[in-house]
Structure formats: structure tokens, C-alpha cells
């Protein structure tokens, strides 16, 4: 019931907008760089397009933030999950045609096509996970990514304090910027507490092949690693089976691996999404890089509570973590962003 009322109102709104098109268009043109559609009332219509199921770690964070916004009554939310890259552009166009105000998703593999869609629907706001920066010629296409290097760095400090063999394994999917920068931040953190650590880095060439990630992690444990950086599903399982420790990434999986996962760098998508909602509502959405809203000082990332490892991490390390966390938040310490492919040393 509520839905149909809202949608008919949206239709009316749209019709009125078309009538007022000439005037509004002139106004919009006079403010280059903005989407000139201020929405005064009612929830925003938000659509999301994910290339993987919503329970997969990265997307699960976006989905969670969107559901929170729905619960607050800020948005109406629909989504397509497991959309293959071949279909991505089509689904994007469908949502755009359907009149959604804000479309979120991930365009890492379909950058050009997605930007073309944005150009074809200048009235719609797009906020897309991307390895590239926003461009001036696409004023309605903003980008985000999980810039949670602050939290990864802190998890590295803990890992460095927990390693005995000074040898760590890292299994990644593909060396794309969002993976690389977190691995580098983690390694930088480790070097604070265990400067001579050897890192084994491997990529498995797939996002969702846990058996393969697990095999790779086994190989790293054979190679002497006693802490694994779990970028992929499957790594913590290998650590659990072999009795070594793991550091989580993006989500907190400690409840599944209580004796294995020491700390996790969590991503919170809420600041990113909430900023976008506010901008669209105010009619001031523009092509920004929303990456900063994943920074720790914006509340975009945090270190998961130690939980089962409370009291098992050396005091000195936790003190350093607290110090650095405060420094990151007040801006006196900045974790380096390094998008280069990490290598074994």
C-alpha cells in the first residue's frame, strides 16, 4: 500500500518536473557540476546493482548500510545481486529508466559502460565502487571504495605483536587497488611491532574460490607463516585447521573462528551512503570521490573488538594501537595509501 502511494506520487512529481522542464533545465545548467533535482520530501528511491550475492563480504557492508537507511525511512531500496558484468549495463539502464534517484553498485569491471550510462541519464545520481577517480565530464557519477587502510594498519600492529615465526601469509583475489592498499597498510602496521617480518603474498585469480584460497593458505603455512591475512573466504579455515592465527578484513568473522581470528579491520559503508543520500536530497550531488568516507576519522572503518582474544594481545601493542587510533582520528597520523601490487619479500 505504502509503496503504491509513494510511486504514484513519484510519477506525479515526474510529470510536473517534465512540465517544468524548461525552467528547471535552465536552472540546472546555471549550476554546472550538480544534479539539479532537489527533492524536498519522501524517501529517496535507491537501487543497487551487485555483481555478487549480498552475503559476500564486500557487498554485505553496502547492503547493511542501505537496509539501515530503509529502517530510518530515508530511502526505498531495491537491488539486483549476482549481476554478471555482461548484464551490468542493461540492469543499470533499467533502474535508470525506472526513475531511481540514486543508483549504487560496483563497476570495477565495467567502468566505461557504466560511465556511458551515467552520461545518458544526467538526472540520476550514480555512486559506484570504482578503481578510478570521478571525472568532470560525468557530473552525476561519484565513486567510492573501501579505503579502510586505517583499520588495516591497526590490525597489522596487533598481528606483528602476535607472530612468533615473523612470517605471515597473505592471500588475495586479484591485485586491484582496494586489495593492494589494505595489504600495504597491514604490512606497515606489522612493521611497527615486528620489523623483520617475512611476507608471503599470493593471488588466486578469482574472488570466490574458497577451496583455492584455502589451498594457497595451506601452502603459506607450510612455508612458515603463523599469521594469515584473510582477504578471501577460505583463508581463516586453513588457519583454523592448522592452528595458526588470522586477521580479518572488511567483516568480523570471529564468531565463526573464535580461536583463530585475532582482530579484523571492519568497513562501515554508512558514512558513504548517508552522505550521498543527503547530497541527492539537497540537490547538490556531484562527481566526488567518496573514498574519504571510509576513513577512520569519518567512521568509515574500525578495528573489531578483540573479543575472544581480549587479554591475549601484548599490552604494549594495544597501547600503540590506541595511540595511533587517536592520532589517525585527529589527523596527526596518516596511513599511507599505496595501490601498488604487493610482493613477497
Amino acid at each position, binding site marked *: 500500500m505504502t509503496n503504491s502511494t509513494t510511486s504514484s506520487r513519484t510519477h506525479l512529481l515526474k510529470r510536473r518536473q517534465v512540465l517544468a522542464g524548461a525552467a528547471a533545465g535552465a536552472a540546472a545548467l546555471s549550476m554546472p557540476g550538480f544534479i539539479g533535482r532537489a527533492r524536498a520530501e519522501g524517501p529517496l528511491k535507491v537501487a543497487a546493482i551487485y555483481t555478487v*550475492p549480498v552475503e559476500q*563480504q564486500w557487498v554485505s557492508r553496502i547492503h547493511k548500510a542501505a537496509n539501515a537507511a530503509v529502517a530510518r525511512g530515508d530511502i526505498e531500496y531495491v537491488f539486483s545481486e549476482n549481476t554478471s558484468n555482461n548484464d551490468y549495463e542493461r540492469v543499470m539502464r533499467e533502474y535508470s529508466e525506472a526513475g531511481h534517484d540514486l543508483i549504487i553498485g560496483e563497476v570495477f569491471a565495467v567502468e566505461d559502460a557504466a560511465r556511458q550510462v551515467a552520461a545518458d541519464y544526467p538526472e540520476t545520481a550514480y555512486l559506484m565502487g570504482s578503481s578510478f577517480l570521478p571525472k568532470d565530464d560525468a557530473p552525476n557519477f561519484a565513486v567510492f571504495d573501501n579505503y579502510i587502510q586505517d583499520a588495516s594498519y591497526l590490525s597489522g600492529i596487533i598481528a606483528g605483536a602476535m607472530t612468533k615465526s615473523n612470517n605471515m601469509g597473505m592471500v588475495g583475489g586479484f591485485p586491484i587497488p582496494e586489495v593492494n592498499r589494505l595489504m600495504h597498510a597491514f604490512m606497515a602496521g606489522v612493521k611497527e611491532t615486528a620489523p623483520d617480518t617475512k611476507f608471503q603474498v*599470493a593471488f588466486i585469480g578469482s574472488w570466490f*574460490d574458497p577451496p583455492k584460497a584455502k589451498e*594457497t593458505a595451506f*601452502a603459506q603455512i607450510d*612455508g612458515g607463516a603463523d599469521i594469515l591475512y584473510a582477504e578471501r573466504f577460505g583463508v581463516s*579455515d586453513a588457519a583454523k585447521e592448522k592452528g595458526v592465527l588470522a586477521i580479518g578484513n572488511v567483516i568480523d568473522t570471529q564468531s565463526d573462528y573464535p580461536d583463530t581470528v585475532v582482530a579484523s579491520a571492519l568497513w562501515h559503508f554508512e558514512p558513504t551512503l548517508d552522505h550521498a543520500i543527503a547530497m541527492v536530497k539537497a540537490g547538490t550531488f556531484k562527481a566526488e570521490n567518496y573514498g574519504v568516507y571510509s576513513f577512520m576519522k569519518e567512521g568509515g572503518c574500525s578495528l573489531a573488538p578483540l573479543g575472544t582474544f581480549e587479554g591475549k594481545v601484548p599490552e604494549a601493542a594495544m597501547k600503540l594501537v590506541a595511540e595511533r587510533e587517536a592520532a589517525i582520528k585527529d589527523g596527526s597520523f596518516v596511513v599511507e595509501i599505496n595501490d601498488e601490487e604487493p610482493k*613477497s619479500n
Partner: protein
Amino acid sequence: MNEALEILFTASFWVAAIRIASPLIFATMGELICERAGVLNLGIEGIMVAGAFSGWFTVYMGGDLWTGVFVAALTGAMFGLLHGFLTVPLGLSQHVTGIGITLLASSLTYFTYRILLPEVSSPPKIEPFQPFAVPVLSDIPVLGPALFNQTPLTYLAYFTVAAVAFVFYRTPVGVAVRAVGENPSAVEAQGISVTAVRIGAVMVGSALMAIGGAFLTMSAFNSFFFEMINGRGWIAIALVVFGSWRPGKALIGAILFAAFDAYQVRLQQITGGVIPYQIFLMMPFVLSIVALVVVARRATYPKALMIPYQKGER
């Protein structure tokens, strides 16, 4: 360099190789049975997805692990029946039908997954098969743990190879299956239905493929991921050619491929990032292609492979 060679003599390397080979062995045997009966089954990739899900889901719902394996096999057999029906009596293109089965099976699986599990925040887990050390045999240095400290599904894989070889070369059923792939008219002349034998072979083969998929969710790992089959079915098709359509050779091919894979992940760690990781990931495939080129030249493929049989047609 020494380090690179030493890997080959560690037990854990061979344990990994056999573990990686297990799903491939099931899938390869399944494809081999289909092709020996004259039916190319490109539905393999999707059937593995369906098997991985149905087996896992059975256990997730409280079923026994072996019940899960049985359900996976049954699911595979059903898709095999569909493929068989379309390609044998109807004589449709085996390539097109097979690709269609792969698309259908994987999409249907995902659809079912979402219908059955609409609200999960992280991939649900089951308690998978655990390794079981065979007494005495597992004490043999290096090879012992590699071959005999695996999960029961791996032992089932060994048994499958032996069973396929035995049935093929020692039983009338095997003769009939091989004959429909070589000279179906001769089989029909004996009063045996080519259609029945072919459909039966495709169903059994597809059941094995599905168990191969189930290995990934019930032994190698403990939860279901949509893209986790990740091309393993296509590899099995190449392994059938590599094995010249013979169970023993195909087994060796599967273990060889898996050993390359286990080797590359270990090699990636010791070269210190000098060589790009893609080279390593490529290695098993490149070596397989090379092996295929060498071996396949002499391969004698089933004469009636991909040729539909129409009764009475000359």
C-alpha cells in the same frame, strides 16, 4: 632452486595435490563415461554447481553427509537425463545443449539458493567430511599421507576410477557403453537399445560430475559459493582428451594437473615476487596444453562421439 625442488618431496605438497585432484577425478570420470557413449556433455560445469549446492544443502538441512552425496548424485543424474533426452532421441546439437544445461543448472541453482536462503548475512557452513587416516597404509613415507590421509570422498574417487575401468573392460554393460560410442548400429543389431544405453551413461556420468562439485562444498570446503566451481568442469573435459578416453590415463592427468596447481601456489611464495603471479596461475593450464598437444595426437577418440544415432538410418 633447491628450495623449489624440495617442495616436491614434502608430504604436504602431495596431500594438497591429491586433494585438489579429487573433484577433478570425479568430474573427469563422469565426462569420460558420457563421451565413451558418444555424448559430449558440456553441461558439466553447471551440473557441478548443482551438485555442489544440493549436496551441501542436504547436509545444511540436517541430512547425513552421505545422504548429501547421494542427493548431489541424484541431482546430477536428473540434469543428465535432460541432456540425454535432448541429445539422444531428439538428436540436438550436443554443444548447444550442453552449454544450455550449464547455464540452466547454474542459474537454477542460484535461484534455488536464494529462495531457500533469502536472508543470510554470511555464507552458512556445514560440518564437512574430515580426513581419515587409513591404518598402516598412511604410515608409508610421503605417499602414505598423500594417498591415505584424505577424506572419505577422496577414497570414493579412487574407487570410482577402479569401478569405471572394471565395468568398461570386464562387463557386458561396459562393452555396450563403449560400443554405442564406436558403432551404435552394431549395438542395435544385437537387440540393445542405443538410446537407453546412451541416456543411462549420460545420467551416471552426470551423477559423478555432481559428486565432483559436492566434493568442493562438503570436503574441500564447508559452504556454498556461487562461482566456486570456477572452470573445474572445463578442465575435466580437457583431461578426458589428455587421458585418451581411458580411465587410468585420465586419473594420471587429473593428478598431474592438480600437482602443477599445488606446486604453483608453493612456488609463488619462494620466488619473492620476482615473477608475476599470473605466470604461476597460468602454469597448470599451460602445462596441460603442452601435455595435451603431445598426447592428443595419438588419441583415438570414440568414433561415434557427437554423432546422433537415428534408428534405421543409413
